[in-house]
């Protein structure tokens, strides 16, 4: 898998140096950088952030152009990396420069080819360039045609034509409505779908369908994580209909892109598949919370959510089941229960799970367990045994793993019949009228799941933004891991990073029994080669009986645009890119390879050493990050003239015993030159022209040559300006120190 991905990356390092400078691109990039640097409250090592592409998908069996539309640090984007390697992209080039034979790459512009054999679905694409590999964005492949209109109409009198069975690409405009016209030649059930959230757009799609008399047929909208979809129950009369489309809170821009699709009497073309395959995204794509694709994987693997009804229709009747039970149901209406009864023996431990929110339905389930005491003449008496509400309440302020789904264990107090009642506390129907759930009742299956994401390199997680990977030689990136334990399992988890390419390493870390998350550093050696690779994180219980691969998650949007939370979603995998052109000026590491033991209530000092190089001479402040409860460390400042210090780690008497993987975040200033190679390249071209200028055989073309030199001088000047050394504040992770807390 990783190998094929690497092959799909169209690196352009082999092109001749001076040919890789597109006309005017440097100046354009400078403008772009100036425009978007303001997003970073604190300067960081520049890592490519992708917010939008010019196009978000296409029909299989077609080829079309795609370019970067919005992002940060999009310097010299030379390749697109698709989650499915069969989808390829070729960098667009322009005619050679004067007195050169090499075509000029148009960085950020690509011709994408989608083979006909690709399965329709949502895939991912990342951009790669001088500043690393970006975060992913969705890319929709369909069997239907795609179009991008030259312009969109904001005038209801002259709407944009919307051909049926075609995905029309558009960007929402701030404080404006896009008007589309669709023609039904005969009475038909109209189906309209506005795809935005599934494209990682910031747009919350909203649509109003109006007939030719001006009567509103239907208003519908999406939400965070939900697109706007409507299908008429009854055929609409033939005629013209106007679709009024906008962002629900009237925002706009290229990051508010969407695709609108209309058809009649057809099925929804974008099925939701539970199992990710062939690089497609799993069903649980919603950005509000991240669901576990592999949660109950075995049990629900065969379920594909389609338009078909669940196995049992909604009913108020109580259903009798036998354990173990697994079923697919529909919630009852407003404040009513779906109830299931079964027999259980005294002392029997029973797990009850409802899976609905995690499948993407707008639900908030609650479980009530009651023991049934039969009465001879009256209705049975019900005794409350347990109730369960939200599960997996884990969040770090950036990634929210809280699920509305209820789950829990109970022990049957006696041999009796029991009733499990399921109620949806989210009584609305704005997003979905019929809501489904999977119910599991049976013996516990103790285990855990792992979720991994790359946090934004910042001291405040609430400032998280979409971020990519750019690993300097000698540097480290932190991957955060969350453990979601289920069915009463409570052990420690050892996590390792497997299949790492040459020059990259990662230590095994431990998520202690009383921890729900930990960090693992990905470390590039000083001589690591240029590398682009997905990484796999695997967690194992300490006894080795349970092994789980981590699901990968990315931040898709930071706060802003009227949304005051960080939006995340699952991704195919986490990637790492090593830049062999960059050497980190400073790195910090714990100077201990051993497990450090400390008794509860005592303190221990661990040496911290800095490796300084040119550009890394500033003072550093090391801060404890995400230490477990009862373990603390004061900030450690290492002055500019020192290279080492000791951080004192204190444990409280109430700290839990166990093995902990600890890390520090080091704040310092570094000086780096952003892209010195670009100066070398344009200078090489300028030198090439200079030589030609001195060559006698070029005297006939002296004037054009002089003109080319003048232009080349401008390019050199621009490149030098863009590559001027900067001093920036960075937040660098240390390696891991393993601390074992023992009883006194």
């Amino acid at each position, binding site marked *: 898998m990783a190998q094929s991905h690497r092959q799909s990356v169209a690196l352009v390092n082999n092109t001749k140096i001076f040919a890789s400078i597109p006309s005017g691109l440097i100046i354009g990039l400078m403008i772009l950088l100036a425009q978007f640097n303001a997003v970073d409250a604190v300067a960081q090592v520049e890592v490519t952030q992708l917010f939008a592409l010019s196009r978000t998908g296409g029909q299989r069996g077609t080829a079309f152009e795609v370019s970067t539309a919005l992002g940060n640090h999009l310097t010299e984007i030379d390749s697109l990396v698709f989650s499915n390697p069969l989808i390829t992209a070729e960098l667009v080039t322009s005619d050679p420069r004067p007195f050169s034979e090499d075509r000029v790459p148009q960085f950020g512009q690509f011709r994408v080819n989608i083979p006909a054999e690709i399965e329709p679905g949502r895939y991912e694409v990342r951009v790669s360039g001088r500043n690393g590999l970006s975060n992913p964005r969705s890319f929709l492949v369909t069997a239907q045609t795609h179009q991008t209109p030259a312009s969109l109409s*904001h005038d209801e009198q002259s709407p944009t034509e919307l051909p049926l069975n075609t995905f029309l690409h558009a960007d929402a405009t701030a404080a404006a409505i896009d008007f589309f016209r669709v023609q039904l030649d005969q009475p038909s059930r109209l189906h309209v779908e506005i795809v935005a959230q599934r494209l990682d757009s910031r747009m*919350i799609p909203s649509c109003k369908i109006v007939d030719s008399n001006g009567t509103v047929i239907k208003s519908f909208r999406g*939400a965070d994580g939900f697109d706007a979809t409507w299908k008429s129950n009854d055929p609409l009369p033939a005629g013209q209909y106007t679709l009024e489309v906008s962002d629900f*809170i*009237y925002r706009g821009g290229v990051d508010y892109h969407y695709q609108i699709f209309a058809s009649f009497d057809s099925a929804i073309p974008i099925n939701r598949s539970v199992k990710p395959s062939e690089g497609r995204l799993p069903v649980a794509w919603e950005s509000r919370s991240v669901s576990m694709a592999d949660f109950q994987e075995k049990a629900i693997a065969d379920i594909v959510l389609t338009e078909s009804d669940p196995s049992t229709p909604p009913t108020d009747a109580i259903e009798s089941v036998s354990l173990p039970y697994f079923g697919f149901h529909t919630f009852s209406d407003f404040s009513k229960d779906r109830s299931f009864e079964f027999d259980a023996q005294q002392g029997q431990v029973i797990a009850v799970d409802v899976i609905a929110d995690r499948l993407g339905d707008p639900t*908030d389930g609650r479980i009530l367990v009651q023991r049934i005491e039969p009465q001879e003449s009256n209705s049975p008496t019900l005794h409350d045994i347990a109730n369960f509400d939200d599960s997996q309440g884990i969040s770090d302020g950036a990634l929210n793993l809280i699920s509305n789904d209820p789950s829990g264990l109970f022990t049957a107090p006696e041999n009796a019949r029991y009733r499990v009642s399921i109620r949806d*506390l989210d*009584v609305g129907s*704005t997003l979905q009228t019929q809501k489904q759930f999977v119910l599991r009742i049976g013996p516990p299956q103790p285990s855990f799941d792992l979720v991994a994401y790359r946090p934004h390199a910042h001291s405040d997680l609430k400032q998280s933004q979409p971020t990519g990977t750019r690993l300097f030689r000698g540097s480290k990136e932190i991957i955060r891991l969350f453990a979601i334990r289920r069915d009463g399992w409570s052990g420690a988890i050892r996590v390792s990073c497997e299949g790492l390419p040459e020059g990259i390493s990662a230590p095994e870390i431990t998520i202690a029994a009383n921890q729900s998350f930990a960090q693992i550093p990905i470390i590039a050696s000083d001589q690591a080669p240029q590398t682009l690779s997905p990484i796999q994180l695997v967690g194992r219980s300490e006894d080795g009986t349970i092994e789980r691969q981590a699901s990968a998650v990315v931040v898709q949007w930071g706060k802003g645009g009227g949304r*005051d939370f960080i939006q995340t979603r699952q991704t195919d995998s986490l990637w790492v890119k090593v830049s062999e052109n960059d050497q980190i000026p400073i790195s910090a590491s714990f100077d201990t390879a051993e497990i450090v033991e400390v008794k509860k209530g005592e303190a221990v000092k661990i040496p911290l050493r800095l490796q300084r190089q040119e550009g890394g001479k500033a003072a550093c402040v090391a801060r404890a990050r995400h230490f477990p409860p009862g373990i603390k460390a004061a900030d450690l400042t290492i002055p500019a003239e020192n290279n080492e210090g000791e951080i004192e780690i204190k444990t409280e008497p109430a700290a839990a015993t166990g093995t902990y993987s600890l890390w520090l975040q080091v704040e310092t200033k570094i000086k780096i030159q952003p892209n010195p190679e670009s100066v070398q390249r344009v200078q090489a071209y300028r030198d090439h022209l200079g030589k030609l200028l001195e060559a006698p055989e070029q005297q006939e073309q002296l004037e054009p040559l002089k003109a080319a030199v003048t232009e080349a001088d401008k390019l050199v000047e621009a490149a030098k300006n863009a590559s001027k050394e900067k001093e920036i504040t960075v937040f660098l992770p240390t390696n891991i120190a393993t601390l074992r807390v023992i009883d006194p």
Partner: protein
Amino acid sequence: MSSITSSFRFALMFVISSTILLGFSVSDAANRPEAVLESVRFDHAQQLELAGRDARLQLLVTGDTQDGQQIDLSHHVRLSAEPAGIVEFEGSLLVPLADGEAVITATTESGQEVKTTARVTQMGQESQISFPGKIIPIFTKLGCNGGGCHGKVAGQNGFKLSLLGFGPKEDHEHLASETRGRRISLANPDGSLLLLKAINASPHGGGQRLEKDSHEYRIMRRWISQGMPYGDDDPSQLVGIEVIPQHRRMAPSTSQQLTVVAKYSDGSIEDITRAAVFESNDPSMASVNDQGLVDLNQVVGDVAVMTRYQGHVSVFRADIPLDRKQGEPRPEYVDPTGNLVDELVWKKLESLGIPTSETCDDNTFLRRITLDLAGRLPTLEEVQTFQTSQDPLKRNEVIERLLASEEYAEYFASKWNSILRNQRQGGGLRFASLAFHDWIRESIYQNRPYDQFVRDIVAASGSVANHPPVVWYQQVPDTNQRIEDAAQLFLGQRVQCARCHHHPYEKWSQADYAQLSAFFTTVSKKNTGDPAEPSFFARIGGASARDPSSGKNLVPAGLDSGDLQIAPYEDPRAAFADWMTDPENPFFAKALVNRYWKHFMGRGLVEPEDDLRVTNPPSNPELIEGMAEHFVRYGFDTKSLIRLIVQSKTYQLSNNAKPDNLGDRRSYSRYYPKRLQAEVLLDAIDRVTLSPTRFSGMPAGVRAVALPDTGFDSYFLTVFGRPQSSTACECERSQEANLSQSLHLLNSEEIQGKLSAETGRAALLASDPRTDTDKINELYMITLGRSPNETENQASIAYVQGKENKREAYEDLIWSLINSKEFLFNH
């Protein structure tokens, strides 16, 4: 725009505005006819008894006329008593002097006499003065324990009393224990600060409240001299009060003495007229003094006077029919053709002898109904089509078309949005407020039954995205506010007083309040995404709330309803919604009926529209009952209710008053003009000037009435009374006229900019090749929904043709039209 132009504008405006709305002027009402007395009587059910020296008894003398009316003669008879020395009179107040019996004689000016017997007892006994029974009512009567004085939470200048005397023990404690020696002087009662302040002998922020020789002063003085006793720990309980009479038909500009009787648990009664507090529900119709004398103004209709004593209330209602001169025929009322509204309005008008105005003309109707249902002016096409239509049912068809329109939903969503307090949290547009507004609009558009609409709000559970009514819980974050808002919005009950003390104007106690709030005590929220959009739900647990007066935890119960036993895992709010929306609920349907009635008719059957209490009776009880029954019978269908109202002849009456209904302001004998709401007026001006207002963040063309909240910066909307959505009260919206509004319309940059816009209507008309006559006719139809009359036409044409600059001329003409009362009012 030159100043000369502006002065012409005023002249032109006078031409336009002077031709309309005659109903705004005032004329004299008819004089009271001479009444011929048939008999005279004392209006007391029992023998007059005065026990003890503190007893007082308000005499009530009534004359029965030949035409079956009753006239109050209490202050128009000569009173005498035999033998002397038993009683004396202070006006019509009977005061005891000595034990014994006396015959009281009342003699009219014409010499008619009526006699009764009064018995005086216990004059020789020095009875102990009860603090809660005698002193507290004095504090209440004098306003000492009001919310603006010592009844404030922090008291006033160090002296604190419980609000309206609902904490007599605490009050006694404050007076008797905390301040003895200075505030109270047992040795020298007259030197007590309590009395010195009351008579203003010592500087008193509240001024003089008592005369030194007054009855109340003497009681308080004696109470001090008795050592400030609290009184009997187990006295007979006050079980109610009764005002006498309870109902009268009275002529305008007449008066009626009231007497108030307290009833105790031991069966005894006591005249408390001088201790009771009186309040008119419409002071412009009737005033009432401290002694319970009601004076009517020169108006017709009905009025109520509430009397209050120790947490109990009773109401006097007066119907005031038109006084007709002898032989003057009574008006005839057209057949109401089965419309319930007409039937019951006609019935009352007939009873009062008030004639109706004529039915309004088609132009007026179209403009009125379009403004009332869609919040906009009728379009030129609509005016022309309606004018030319010969369909006898065209009015009903317009009603149906408007009811089916999205504009109707937008307009009424704006109304509900405001009182549901939906407003953005923060600067820009917010998902939550837009989602809730959108849900309200869609519910109205789909004509969601009102009971379901309310249930979805009060029992809202889930996420903002999927169930937007939960935003109400976010906007109203406090449990007390929730129950108070729900009661005021959906039941027309203002229960907030009962949070801290027994409701002074209603029967609701703190226990009632606690039981209502218990429905909301299990509401919880959780954050799942944007912290500004938490989900709400009812957690598992027993719902209960503490009654501060008893200290007990009480289970949920509706008003006037029994305790509800709700399983811990059920949502108590569902039970609350069940109780509210039960067809038998006495408040729910009426509250909505009254709210919508006011929307269309300009004045609620009960005013304020969300204050339905026994002490504030409807002006037409049968009508509100009848419409409420209709509303329930039709499944809480708001469109059906609206049809009932706007299809009635009552709604379609002209605003032009007749001499005999000019004074009517409560009986709906004519249409009462109302100033356009801020948003409607701005939209109307935008439409007329063809210069739409842009609202920050919203697409072009969005009307002001369709805005999702009130957070848009607009001086125009502010100055014309747009509400802030900070309370559940429609009173936040002001529809009064003021100088700032006039100045803004007359001379603001905003209006000038609209008039002189390059693509505005004035510019278009100036370059329009049609004749001025045609253009002016069209302009009148767009602006006023009618063609100009001859005077207006001539004046307008002369003005336009007299100006060289046609664009300015049309700007002036439009300016004049939008400044006319006819434009500014729905009439």
